[in-house]
């Protein structure tokens, strides 16, 4: 194993990690603002993957151009879900919220199972078999597209929260919900927008992941768990933390797969999680409560 080999492994880990990070962004946004842990996160992503799959197979729109459509669809789904259901449980104890979202996850999985059946579905693009060669470095074309799009979506999200009035209002709600109400902000509506934005991030990630993995209804639990590992590593509620967590998980999987054993690579993500919980319980970029 030479330096070129490790460069290839690290670049693959980085690219995969960026997509993981985008997937976890939605979870982090929702928790950061509303303090609601979205256990239906993976299920919403599976819905997005199926939506992208349908757009490709029925209308011939490939996942990257379909991204705004799917993100928009998930935004509406998230907005309505928050307005009609989750909002009623915001004052409830945490375990009630957990149960609510777990129930929602099970319902979504079963609806998807009824509609699409248990088969794994994938899409075949010409790019699925292509790669870029940069000297000795071979970069998977699909991963490069997915990673750059993930980076772009993360930048847009950051700009939205930093520079727009709605973004600033949402940050105000996250920092001090009572104060936000006092100054006349419609907190419920802003929470619904936040949930919509979180869901839209999940939708974008779903489109990109469809380029990398096959979708089936039971995929959701794997990605919900992975999302939790990433946001806890990076720091719950931190946008940068979610991206950093994703990259760390991608890199740890890649390097442990090469240096120890590929079949043990997931174990190292959990090992990393325990280490961070011991040394910095709030996550690498998280704030102390």
């Amino acid at each position, binding site marked *: *194993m030479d330096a070129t*080999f490790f460069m*290839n*492994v690290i670049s*693959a*880990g980085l690219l*995969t990690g960026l997509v993981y990070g985008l997937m976890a962004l939605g979870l982090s946004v929702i928790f950061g603002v509303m303090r609601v842990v979205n256990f239906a996160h993976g299920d919403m992503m599976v819905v997005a993957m199926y939506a992208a799959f349908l757009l490709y197979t029925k209308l011939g729109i490939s996942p990257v151009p379909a991204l705004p459509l799917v993100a928009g669809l998930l935004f509406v789904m998230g907005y309505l879900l928050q307005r009609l259901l989750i909002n009623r449980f915001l004052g409830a104890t945490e375990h009630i919220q957990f149960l609510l979202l777990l129930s929602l996850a099970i319902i979504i999985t079963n609806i998807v*199972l009824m509609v699409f059946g*248990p*088969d*794994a579905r*994938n899409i*075949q693009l010409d790019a*699925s*078999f*292509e*790669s870029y*060669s940069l000297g000795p470095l*071979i970069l*998977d*074309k699909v991963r490069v597209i997915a990673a750059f799009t993930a980076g772009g979506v993360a930048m847009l999200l950051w700009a939205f929260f930093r520079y727009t009035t709605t973004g600033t209002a949402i940050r105000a709600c996250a920092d001090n919900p009572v104060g936000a109400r006092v100054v006349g902000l419609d907190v419920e509506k802003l929470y619904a927008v936040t949930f919509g934005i979180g869901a839209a991030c999940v939708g974008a990630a779903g489109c990109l992941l469809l380029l*990398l*993995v*096959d979708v*089936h*209804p*039971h995929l959701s639990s*794997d990605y919900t768990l992975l999302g939790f590992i990433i946001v806890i590593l990076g720091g719950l509620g931190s946008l940068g933390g979610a991206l950093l967590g994703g990259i760390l998980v991608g890199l740890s*999987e*890649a390097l442990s*797969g*090469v240096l120890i*054993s*590929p*079949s043990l*690579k*997931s174990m190292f993500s959990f090992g990393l999680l325990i280490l961070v919980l011991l040394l910095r319980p709030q996550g690498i970029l998280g704030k102390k409560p």
Partner: protein
Amino acid sequence: MSDNATSLSASKSTISRRQFTAATAAGALAASLPLRSARAATPLKLGVLLPRSGHLALIGQACQRGAEIGLPMLRDMGYSVELMNADTESNPDVGRTQAEKLIREGANMLMGCFDSATTLAVAGVAEQKGVPFVVNIASEPKLTEQGFKYVFRNFPSAGMLGKGGLLLYKDIFAATGVTPKTAVLLHINDSFGMAMLGGINALMPKLDMPFTIVETIAYDPKARDLSIEVSKAKAAKADLVMTVTRLNDAILLVREMVKQQVETMGIISPGAPGMYDKQFFKALGKYAEYCTTNVPWFDPTQDMAKTLEKTFEKAFPEESCDLNVGFTFEAVLIAADAHKRAGSNDPQALSAEAKPVFPMPPFKGRT
């Protein structure tokens, strides 16, 4: 003593002791015949346990098609079978629970389960409950080496699969005139994959294979991404890639090898699912043509196989009548035949009649 001496009455028609004994025996036989016949007329309730969802769903559904497509054929052959279907969800724990449920609901026999881990779990239930269990596909050696009384298998064990598969490698090398010196083995780390690994490692020196395995890479069959595994295989710079896969991971592996520009003399599986499945060809297109798999196959020259293939093509023109279909049909046939010969739904009688068909017919390899 004459027969007359034992006559009850000289004036009435008399029945001798010998006649009475004979009549009683004949009566008992006559009485038993309709009873046996009536029992055989009660259809066999066969609990079918297959992974119709989860990561083995595509193969599980192929097996299910094999179980269902043969029913009209079996009816024409005079067999009477009702299927009680259950989904193991590619999970041994679910398989165990479903087996118990099927038995509670009246299954006389069980059939399944495609993957070794679930099959082992269901075998435990079958033994505990005393219900015969016919394995359609599963190669874990323990299934037939553990002394189970109610488990019957008509599929090669991992050792047989490995031996048959490795011997076919030599045929391929002879036919192509190219013999690799080194190989890298990529294998799944479930019960089947580990059993195959054990078989291959034991057989390589015994069969005097012309190449050595320089790197062995295990991975999770549910893996979402195999880029690291393929990077590691590429770094081994071996002449040949050997694979022990399921379906989804076989697609991922080959796709990743194309992307990473892996150059090898060939990709040859010594006996595993994946590379013969229709979905593999659909997903990989022209790249599927560069892969070879050595697997057991039903004999396509037999009349029954021809009828099965015709029936299957008519019912499922988009699917292929592969070994999953063939071996599952055969498992249902074994169960139905045991039921017909036992003339009963009694588990002991079914077990006794399922035994003569074991061991299986000669291994037929196909590349």
